[in-house]
């Protein structure tokens, strides 16, 4: 393995995503890795977090002992409400998402196509029990959908593809991929580079992903 460069750690990746979130943004952070972005929102800016189960203005996890399981996030973990926050019923909460009122949604993914198709709800494994939750609503609802993921599988296969092989969550919905090796824009013309980790050559990144990347 070429080791002239260091992959972004999970924390560095969360910080990289958080760096692009702007003051006043309404943001939904998906279950799993995206949730950690909240810990890295730059000081001095105010961001309102949406949780699709019915919270606008979600705060961090409560102190141990203060958990209230009537106040949980979409991952069913206990959270808090910030001053100014509000509760919504499900139809209103998803209308808020589907209606394009949220600025940014950050999601995890199994695969993303160069033109922004997203596969993040099912690996299509025979015999597995399907579960979709809000994934399809989140994928297409916000003004911008960002994906946060390692760009390669453990076996080294690219998770960014010409066309997804796993069942789709949404078509042409991902604007950006924040990866451990690079940040990429998905466009109708394919991938475009936003940034990459130090020491990683452009042609090496293209080789790893198996796709052309415009500068």
């Amino acid at each position, binding site marked *: 393995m070429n080791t002239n460069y260091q992959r972004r750690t999970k924390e560095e990746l969360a910080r990289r995503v958080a760096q692009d979130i702007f003051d006043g943004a309404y943001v939904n952070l998906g279950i799993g890795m995206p949730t950690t972005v909240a810990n890295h929102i730059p000081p001095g800016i105010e961001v309102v977090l949406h*949780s*699709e*189960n*019915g*919270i606008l203005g979600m705060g961090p996890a409560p102190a141990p002992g203060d*958990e*209230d*399981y*009537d*106040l*949980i996030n979409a*991952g*069913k*973990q*206990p959270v808090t*409400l910030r001053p100014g926050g509000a*509760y*919504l*019923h*499900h*139809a209103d*909460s*998803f*209308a808020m*998402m*589907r209606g394009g009122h949220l600025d940014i949604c950050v999601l995890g993914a199994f695969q993303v196509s160069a033109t922004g198709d997203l596969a993040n709800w*099912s690996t299509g494994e025979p*015999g*597995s*029990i*399907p*579960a*979709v*939750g*809000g*994934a*399809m*609503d989140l994928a*297409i*609802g916000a003004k911008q959908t960002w994906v946060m993921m390692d760009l390669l599988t453990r076996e080294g296969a690219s998770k960014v593809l010409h066309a997804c092989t796993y*069942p*789709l*969550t*949404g*078509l042409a919905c991902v604007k950006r991929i924040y990866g451990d090796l690079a940040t990429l824009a998905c466009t109708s013309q394919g991938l475009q580079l936003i940034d990459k980790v130090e020491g990683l050559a452009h042609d090496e990144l293209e080789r790893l992903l198996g796709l052309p990347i415009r500068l």
Partner: protein
Amino acid sequence: MINKIAASVAEALAGTADGATVLIGGFGTAGIPNELIDGLIEQGARELTVVNNNAGNGDSGLAALLAAGRVRKIVCSFPRQADSHVFDALYRSGRIELELVPQGNLAERLRAAGAGVGAFFTPTGYGTALAKNADGSAKETREIGGRPYVLEYPIYGDLALIKAERGDRWGNLVYRKAARNFGPVMATAAKRTVATVHEVVDLGALDPEHIVTPGIHVSHIVCIERVATQAGGFKAAA
């Protein structure tokens, strides 16, 4: 005089028919009306179609209703969870039918039922495996203003079981925190809605500016003792 306060869960659920479609509020364990589900098990209706976001946690509540063999079909968005072993076993042995619906479409199909909307076009699910009918045929689609949409139909309930915080004899309800989730929209979508509350207050005591579900959508209220909502639906941190 209107008095929707029922003396017991059994009284509120009397007459629930076999084959009924039952909308059950809750997301994970928040807002799950466990006392009403226990009452439904006791009442005995069978061959039910249940609509809930999930498919039961642990062994109580909705999981107990499934385990009792009363549910023919479940309509939900996220059946598989860390603690959904009752559903998992039924599904794997072919003893329960599953209609998987994206969460926002589930909420909107219920809203449509309550609002008298015959069907609606939604962008959610377009181009995916969930834009198909049970028989595998494609759902109707349409491009509107350059954007593709899928046609989705309402989900009507015969009975809705929901959990609220406080209510009055007209059936007006307020909820608690994110336990509100599906309650208000399910209340509108069923022919009959039964809500539990932890407190019954005098008519006029609820601030009209704060009432979330107006009593017109509620058939019966049952006052139950407060039990703290238990964690569920995720793997506890080691």
